[in-house]
């Protein structure tokens, strides 16, 4: 028993955190919005690829880092906290390992950060980064297939988080490259996406609490720092509590997937519930504690809050995952009104 990130995994997350601290400033995290200079985001993504991020779960033989799912929570927490608008869960957790397993020739471009790869396990739902991606991992029935930009029709869809670059994507059912097949493969990819998204949400929650702590310590009203009011303190303490308890649940989900634990599905759903609810609470608290400035787009907070709302509902919202857990716990046996 040892509940602590292994050195390898911590080192990767640390390197990524350092890189993001230097490279992903306010300009980069805004550059993904419509009309923004998204090439600045691409440049950071390429640098992250240089550290090996895209290939985290790709075997070393395929030029990846060869790490397992234990690496995802610390890594994607850092990506989440940065606010950088990239398909982190979709590429790192879902897409790249599928391409590697299928021997897809596009893998090299993805690992280099030259080809932007997105993924969606929810047929018909808008695809994140659908207007910007070069490659799409899409599910049809029990198959996961890879399509190039030329093979799909991507119609932009608005989002509260403009940098999500949503598109409604239609692809020819039999086309593209078959990556994986069968309910187990589809479920495994889904769990990767859920886990990665949960980790992003933890990072977003942490960041929003930090931003708010810094703001309320500085901002004065009624002659004292706003952060010295007990109401503000307690609201932030509750947000911190939620985020801090989500974090180990996400780590445990990563371990369960890596270890092939039979409880992996439940642990993963649990992580998503806790991380989604924590990030939502952090967003709500952060906006309230900031007052009017939290309600403007000139200040950075909204970038994190909108991402949190989008990701909390993506890859199954909290009530979807509670429903999944209810089934596992044998709570849906009987009919009810």
């Amino acid at each position, binding site marked *: 028993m040892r509940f602590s990130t292994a050195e390898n995994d911590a080192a990767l997350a640390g390197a990524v955190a350092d890189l993001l601290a230097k490279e992903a400033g306010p300009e980069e995290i805004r550059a993904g919005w419509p009309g923004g200079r998204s090439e600045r985001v691409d440049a950071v993504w390429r640098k992250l690829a240089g550290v090996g991020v895209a290939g985290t779960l790709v075997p070393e033989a395929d030029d990846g880092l060869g790490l397992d799912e234990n690496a995802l929570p610390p890594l994607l927490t850092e990506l989440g906290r940065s606010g950088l608008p990239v398909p982190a869960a979709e590429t790192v957790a879902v897409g790249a390992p599928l391409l590697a397993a299928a021997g897809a020739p596009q893998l090299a471009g993805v690992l280099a950060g030259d080809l932007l790869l997105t993924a969606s396990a929810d047929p018909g739902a808008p695809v994140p980064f659908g207007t910007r991606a070069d490659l799409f991992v899409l599910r049809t029935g029990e198959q996961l297939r890879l399509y190039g930009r030329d093979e799909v029709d991507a119609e932009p869809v608005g989002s509260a988080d403009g940098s999500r670059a949503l598109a409604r994507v239609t692809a020819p059912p039999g086309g593209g490259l078959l990556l994986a097949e069968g309910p187990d493969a589809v479920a495994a990819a889904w769990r990767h996406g859920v886990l990665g998204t949960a980790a992003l949400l933890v990072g977003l929650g942490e960041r929003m609490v930090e931003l708010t702590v810094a703001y309320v310590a500085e901002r004065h009203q009624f002659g004292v720092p706003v952060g010295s009011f007990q109401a503000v303190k307690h609201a932030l303490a509750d947000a911190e509590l939620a985020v801090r308890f989500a974090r180990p649940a996400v780590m445990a989900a990563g371990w369960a997937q890596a270890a092939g634990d039979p409880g992996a599905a439940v642990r993963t759903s649990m992580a998503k519930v806790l991380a989604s609810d924590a990030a939502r609470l952090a967003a709500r608290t952060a906006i309230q504690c900031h007052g*009017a400035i939290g309600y403007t787009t000139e200040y950075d907070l909204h970038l994190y809050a909108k991402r949190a709302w989008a990701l909390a509902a*993506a890859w199954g919202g909290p009530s979807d995952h509670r429903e999944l857990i209810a089934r596992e716990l044998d709570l849906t046996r009987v009919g009810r009104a």
Partner: protein
Amino acid sequence: MDLTWSPEDEAFRAEARAWLEANVPRRPLPSGDTREGFAAHLEWERTLFDARWAVVSWPEEYGGRDASIWQWLIFEEEYYRAGAPQRVTQNGIFLLAPTVFEFGTPEQQRRILPRMAAARDLWAQGWSEPGAGSDLAGIRSRAVRDEAAGGWRLTGQKTWTTRGAFCTHLFGLFRTDPEAQRHRGLTYFLVPLDAPGVTVRGFERLDGDEGFAEVFLDDVFVPDTDVLGGVDRGWSVAMATTGSERGLTLRSPGRFLTAAERLLDLARSLPDGPGAHRDRVVQSWIDAQAYQLFTLEQVTALAEGRPAGAESSLNKLFWSELDIRLHETALDLLGPAAETDGPWSKGFLFSLAGPIYAGTNEIQRNIVAERLLGLPRR
């Protein structure tokens, strides 16, 4: 207890409903917090005014109908029920006008109110400053006496001015006595935004609309006739206005009754129904009803001459949190579809401002605790 409407009130409702059905634009206007949407909304305001629906509770001489507070409530219900456009004139009509009625000179009333009702003058509120949000006493913008010119010279910065970039006038507090502490020495001024020395810069709200502005004032001259309620008396004059901002006039029950009906429609429209969210849907509907009933009790008290006072803080707390819960429930019903732009997503972002503006909910809870419950101030 009598929760039925009189024949006169029913007739008023029927008239309002019929007019709204015939006149409310078929398609929703673009947001009134954007530049082009504002123009469309202005046209609607003038349509309202021409038919004498702009300010139903005002005297007829200013364009109103002398309607009772009950009829005002009825009109609001019908207005929201009809899906009529947002009132871009509301900061003038609901925040400034009550103060003008109470503190304005007859000359000010005649000069200001009819043009406000007709949406010819568009008023923005100038409460907040970068260093003074919920704590209005921290205001630093100042007015210096210009005896020769018979007026004041205003310098400073106002912010979070709703639709300030599209308005023609500003009302707000300025410090006229630099020696006075906090609440004292403030004066309530009315400022045309085209006066020399005024600069207005619009900026974006959370929901992406340019709904806010910063207003910079650099030695702006305002004549004595544009002081409202007396020099150095601005604090008590303003408090009357923030009272009405918090209370009934800002958020009538009609708004939430309509939102709750829309939520029910959404829940019924889903293939699997409201599922695990059913209790929350029901509770939102219950809360909207409860808000209406609370308001009816309050309006009865007002109509019978018992003033509401600090109870308006209860209204503010209840509607602002109801509004968020209601929208959160809608977004959860929509699931991942909530992310794509739409009225619920936009409404959710807007609802988050509720507990912040017009005195944060933290301050409202202090007021409830200290003034209604009598807990010690510390």
